[in-house]
């Protein structure tokens, strides 16, 4: 039996290795963040000049917008960093060296998830401050509220990614081979978690309905309401819907239930299944 202490030591070692990014990645991110900062500095200064008499107030529409930006940013960065540390290792073959040590599939998955979370947190926060930093600097936007949005979006993106990774392990066990890689399924879940928000589904639904409409002209009100109803019903599947609701409740914008009665049990079920089946996987699944 491999003790928890030993497993933790392996996980920490892998995380410590993976969190070291090449210098060019830090420089590129810093450069993009700086350009973003400079780009938005003008609008921020104008905003400060003309609207300085108003204090910031959250509305449902503004929360949706800024949460969507954070969700998109964190999902993108998290997906890319996980692809680098997990798929990158499998693709380059370096995973073959790690599996020569007493680790199991879960140790590798947990270590890779944690390292991608650390790296994504650093990079996305850098970009976050690059994009919004000018508005914080001139005192227009409340930095703490925005950080809450960013952290919540990052946590929900991580949840979506982790579900995809552990589901890939469960599928691999059932199929006997890596039918879909954890990186690919993680990326699919990251995308779905953004698309399955109320806003995302409504946007997709209206576009599809518009394209499929029988004659020229716009959508009818009942059709639009039906799309919104379907979007609301399906959005309980998205971690980002839950995240936005939590933030909405925290900001006093809504009294609705946070809707985690679907996402959380489903995620726990996938984690438990993926973990237990992952324990039974032989590590040559990476090299077959």
């Amino acid at each position, binding site marked *: *039996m*491999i003790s928890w202490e*030993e497993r933790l*030591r*392996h996980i920490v*070692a*892998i995380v*410590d*290795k993976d969190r070291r990014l*090449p210098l060019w990645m830090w420089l590129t991110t810093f450069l993009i963040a700086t350009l973003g900062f400079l780009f938005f500095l003008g609008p921020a200064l104008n905003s400060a000049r003309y609207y300085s008499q108003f204090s910031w107030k959250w509305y449902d529409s503004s929360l949706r917008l800024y949460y969507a930006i954070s969700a998109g940013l964190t999902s993108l960065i998290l997906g890319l960093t996980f692809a680098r540390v997990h798929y990158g290792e499998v693709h*380059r*073959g*370096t*995973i*073959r*060296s*790690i*599996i*020569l*040590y*007493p*680790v*199991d599939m879960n140790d590798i998955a947990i270590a890779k998830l944690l390292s991608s979370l650390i790296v994504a947190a650093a990079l996305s926060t850098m970009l976050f401050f690059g994009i919004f930093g000018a508005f914080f600097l001139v005192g227009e936007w409340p930095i703490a509220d925005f950080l809450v949005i960013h952290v919540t979006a990052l946590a929900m993106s991580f949840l979506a990614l982790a579900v995809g990774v552990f589901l890939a392990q469960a599928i691999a066990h059932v199929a006997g081979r890596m039918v879909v890689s954890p990186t690919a399924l993680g990326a699919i879940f990251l995308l779905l978690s953004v698309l399955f928000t109320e806003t995302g589904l409504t946007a997709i639904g209206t576009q599809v309905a518009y394209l499929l409409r029988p004659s020229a002209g716009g959508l009818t009100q009942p059709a639009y309401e039906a799309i919104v109803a379907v979007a609301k019903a399906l959005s309980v599947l998205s971690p980002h819907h839950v995240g936005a609701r939590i933030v909405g409740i925290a900001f006093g914008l809504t009294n609705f239930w946070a809707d985690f009665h679907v996402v959380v049990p489903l995620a726990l079920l996938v984690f438990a299944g993926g973990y237990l089946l992952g324990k039974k996987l*032989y*590590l*040559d699944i990476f090299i077959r």
Partner: protein
Amino acid sequence: MLVQASGLVKQYPRVRALDQVSLEIKEGEVFGLFGPNGAGKTTCLRVLSGLTQPDAGSATVCGIDVRAAPNEVRRELGILIDIPFPYEEVTVRRYLSFFAEMAGVPAYDIPMKVEWALTLLGITHHRESRIGKLSMGERQRTELARVMLGNARMLFLDEPFSNVDVSMRIGLRSILRDWVSRGGSILFTSHNLLESEAIVDRYAFLHLGRIIALGTARELKSTLLAPAYELEVGDVDRGLAALRAIPHQSLERAGRGLVRIGLVSRDDAPRIARTLVEANVDLLEMRSLGTMEDVYSRLTLPTPQPPQGLTR
């Protein structure tokens, strides 16, 4: 016994990689696994290291059942794979430190252990070199340093001497011998049978997933090869004439001052020197012919062609 495997079977969709493989490896033994490409050597190593699930059979390695605890087994092993994929962007020191940590070396001990391994493998001057910049031989030495870092009771070495120069091979053999003398064991695969004779204690020959021969070099040679000798004599013609009296399969001139004789029975070997002395022919040197390569050819080639044409 450090390894006890019985009836291991591994079936892939198109090929049976292991077919009822049974073997035992004792403590302090270097066990060589040989065979042509695709014979099942790598699969055997993978099954014994808990990386691949066997379809049938059982195996314990260092007292751990590989089917019950496949990942735990590797705590006791230092494994070198045939084609390593190191992290090319990191320095040798960081690479070894990482794997020392993975091998369970206490954090306070890692720098010292890394330094020890660097010195042992003669790559101290590459301490801060990136692995991607190293030559193939230096990479192989780094991989061997990685394997030697941990507290393994047994080493699984797949082609450990590939890409390593001759002087380093000699050094590595002595390092491995020293390691074995301290109670460790080695399961070793290689294509270089001649070189293996300097290090391997016992051989298993795999062919199409089956063990077709198992034993020490001496046992295998005496079982599978007829005794053959190369003699350096003072007078070849008189030597050939005298040696005709001994029952032989072949007797021929092998070059200037050289005679090759293939005997019918190993028991007749002492008669060679006696016969030549009686015939007043100087015997300058007598070398036994028949290497493990000849054993290999005898076992695996469809039409065996030993160098002296001497097979039982």
